[in-house]
Every structure is written in C-alpha cells, then in structure tokens.
C-alpha cells in the first residue's frame, strides 16, 4: 500500500493524478469522492494547510503516511519518483524546465479559464459546509449563484483558444507528445482541455494536430484506465470550483 487517493471524476486535476498513477504503476487505494458535493471538505479527509489552501481548488488529495498532498502536477512528479513505470518527466534539466514551465502556464492561465467556463456551464447546486479558504468559498458562491462575470468568461474563452493554438504550434514539427517524449505536460493539458471541446468549440475548428494528439492520448492504456473510472457518461462535463483567475496579471 503506497497511499490513499481521494479523487473526483476523471476530469481536470483528478484525471492528471489517476492517469499518472496508472502510467507509473503505483498501486493506490482509490477512494472516489464527490467533489461537486463538497466531499473534499468533510471530516473524512485530513485538513492540513496543503489540503485546505491548495491553489488548485477542488482537486484530488493523496495521503501517504501522515502527509496529505495536493496539486496535481506536483502529485504527478511525486508519482514519477516513486513509481516503477517509464518516466513521465524528461531527465535532461532543460527539457524538464520546459515541462515545468509548460505546466505552470496550464496551471496559471488555462486551468482557471477552464474551471470558470466549466462551472458556468454546469454550476454546483449548493455551497458545501466547512470550506476553510474564504476565497475558495467565494468561488463556490459565485459558481452556485451563476455570477460569472461576462468579461472574465470572454477572456477565459480567449485563453482556451490560445492554449489550443499553443499546443497546435508545439506539435507542428510532427512530434507525438508536447515535450517530445510523453510527459506530465500531456496529461495536465488534456485534463483541462478535454471539457472545452463542447464549451469552446471555436477553439478546435482548425486543430488537426491537437485532435490527433488527443486521440493518441486516449489510446494510452493508462489514460483509458483513468477515464474508465468515470461513473457518469461524460466526466469532462463535471466541474467544481477550480483555481482562481489570476487577480494580479
């Protein structure tokens, strides 16, 4: 037993971590929770600062011994270290920098946009009790009340269009994966963009390389295994409040 993973439907950060665990052959005890119902805030989970103040919002929690860990890209780095499957991070320092900088872009620009659009399209019903972070609680209230700001939603659509363009350009040299070899960057990018085909279709009208990349990704056994854990037909349509839209710039 290497850890207990509390996770939601295989979308967004839960997808990244589930797929990374399968890629790496890490045998976690999986405990599915309903992120949209606010299960993550219940007393069944540990609540150190790293859980309650995670920048990611409603993401998975991995408990190893007495440590509860959050933030999907860093959980995937951890799984890469402890798992036996092929590496999901490049070994060369510069290639690794490229992967971390790419993931930072996804975390900072793409994820907040996707979460804002996803929550606006499928708002949660109630604000759960027990949310420790006031700013996360405010994002829940806005999501439940459908108070998304039109300017922010328009900007979020732009961010998704730009992200698809960026991936299309990255794949232009004919490579299969974003960093050359398959990596966490592929998982994290797909995690946030999968649900955007339905919500921002204009981003995908001329993206043949992105389409082929997504098909390759879905064909990976670990990805199929992660998506196979869904208990609803379209896990990419399930959203709970995510990272906040950068309040500084």
């Amino acid at each position, binding site marked *: 037993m290497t850890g207990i993973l509390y996770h939601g439907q295989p979308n967004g950060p839960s997808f990244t971590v589930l797929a990374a665990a399968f890629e790496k052959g890490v045998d976690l005890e999986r405990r599915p929770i309903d992120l949209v119902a606010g299960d993550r805030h219940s007393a069944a989970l540990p609540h150190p600062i790293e859980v309650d103040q995670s920048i990611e919002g409603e993401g998975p929690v991995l408990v190893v011994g007495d440590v509860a860990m959050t933030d999907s890209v860093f959980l995937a780095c951890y799984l890469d270290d402890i798992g036996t499957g092929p590496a999901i991070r490049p070994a060369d320092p510069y290639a690794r920098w490229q992967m971390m*900088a790419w993931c930072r872009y996804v975390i900072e620009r793409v994820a907040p946009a996707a979460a804002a659009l996803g929550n606006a399209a499928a708002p949660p019903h109630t604000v759960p009790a027990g949310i420790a972070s006031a*700013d996360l609680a405010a994002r829940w209230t806005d999501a439940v009340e459908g108070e998304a700001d039109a300017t922010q939603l328009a900007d979020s659509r732009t961010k998704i269009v730009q992200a698809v363009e960026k991936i299309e350009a990255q794949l232009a040299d004919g490579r299969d994966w974003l960093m050359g070899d398959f990596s966490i960057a592929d998982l994290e990018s797909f995690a946030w963009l999968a649900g955007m085909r339905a919500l921002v279709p204009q981003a995908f009208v001329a993206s043949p390389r992105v389409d082929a990349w997504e098909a390759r990704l879905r064909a990976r056994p670990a990805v199929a295994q992660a998506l196979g854990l869904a208990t609803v037909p379209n896990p990419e349509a399930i959203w709970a409040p995510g990272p906040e839209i950068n309040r500084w710039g």
Partner: protein
Amino acid sequence: MTDVTLYHWEPNANSGKPMLALFEKGVAFDSHYLDLLNFDQHRPDYLAVNPLGTIPAMTHGDKVLTESTAIMEYVNEAFDGPRLMPADPVDQWRARWWMKFLDQWLAPSFSMIGWSVFVGPSVRQKDPAELEAAIDRIPMPERRTAWRKAINGAFSPEEMTESQRRVGLGIGYLEAALVQREWLASGEYGLADINGFNLAYAMPLSQPQLCNDELTPNIMRWLRAIYARPATRACWALGRTDLARRISLLESEPA
C-alpha cells in the same frame, strides 16, 4: 566569462529567486540589470529574450529560460554545488507546493500592495504621454491593466482589503510551517526558502504589526538565518536601490 546570463531587477520577488539560487549553487553569471521602474523589461532588446516582457529571464549557452521558480529548479539540476531540493520525494512535493502557494496566492497580494504604495508613486511623475507610450509597449494585457492601476492609484478598496487579508493569513501560515520545521518545506535549506525569503525579507518592515519577534518568532529566526548566509549577502549586494537595502533590518538582534 561565463555562459550564464541573468536578466534581473533588484534582488527581490521574482528576480531575486534565480539570483539567490545561483549564488547558493556557486554558479558565476553575467548580471544584466533591468530597471523595472524605467520599463526596461518592455524594450525590444529584452523582448527578444522574453517576449512576455517580465523579469527575470536567464540564458545558459543558447538556452533561454523564464519563470523564476522553474528557473530555480533548472539551476539546481543543471549545475554542481549544494543540493537545493530535498532528497525525499514527499519533501520535494512540499517544496513545490509551497513555491506555488507563494507564487500564485501570497506574492500577488504583496505585489498589489507594493505596486500601490511604491511602484505606482515612483513612476507617476513621469510625462503622461511618455507613460502612455510605455504602457502601450507592454505585451501582456493583464500587465497593461496592472500598470495603469498602479500609475493611476486605481486599485479598488476591495482588492486592497483582500490583498491585506491574504498577507495577514499568509504570515500566519508561514509561522505555523516554521514552527513545525526548521526550514519551510523540510529539514534542509532549499528552493522553497529562497523563494519565501524573496517575498518575506522585508515583512518585519512592511508589516510590522503582523511580523515581529513577539508574534512570529519562527519567521524572524528563519529570515535571520537566511540573511546570515554568505550567498544572501553576495546576492543582495547586487541591489542598487533602497528596496534591496531593506534587508539590513535583519541585522537587528532578536527582541
């Protein structure tokens, strides 16, 4: 001659992170100082290095790197010298967790306050037409907005209150972490401390009612311990303004 060039401003916030990591690692680098208050970061010669027009950026041979925290991880991995990430994978996770929390939650709140009380007033007296032209050269729309707000003193009371709320909470979280551990993320000094120090070194001066020997003795212990490191002294010596000179307040004895 070295094959590393760092484009940076004062040892402070994002610029100071790779600077201090390079000093701790013992990596010689060519220092290319950009004056943020003179909008050097939006000039064509720098945009050729970092098209986003933000500082810092680093070149290593023909490789170009941006994103201060990611640059620090590169510096740690690409060069010899002391290890600045813990060996244990859980500790590595915790170092990254804290760096993200600082970069994306606490630092933006400090920035808003800093831009409102320092950056805005420092450039406001320039010729308005010149300022408008300078803002037009900024590549990122989000930053054009931030600069306009700073220059016009237009941060709303709500956003300032929210930033101050986060600063207060963040100081409490830092203190609580440093009660548990000698260093921010593990038992060893490393990148999370370098990141945190760049954000926090002036807190006893800028937030004296929240950060002091009585209320936050562990933050004070931690700041003084980092200040005592030769790499920190060497790094802050590259500062050219009073901003970096605020570090000298850490010479004070614990109360």
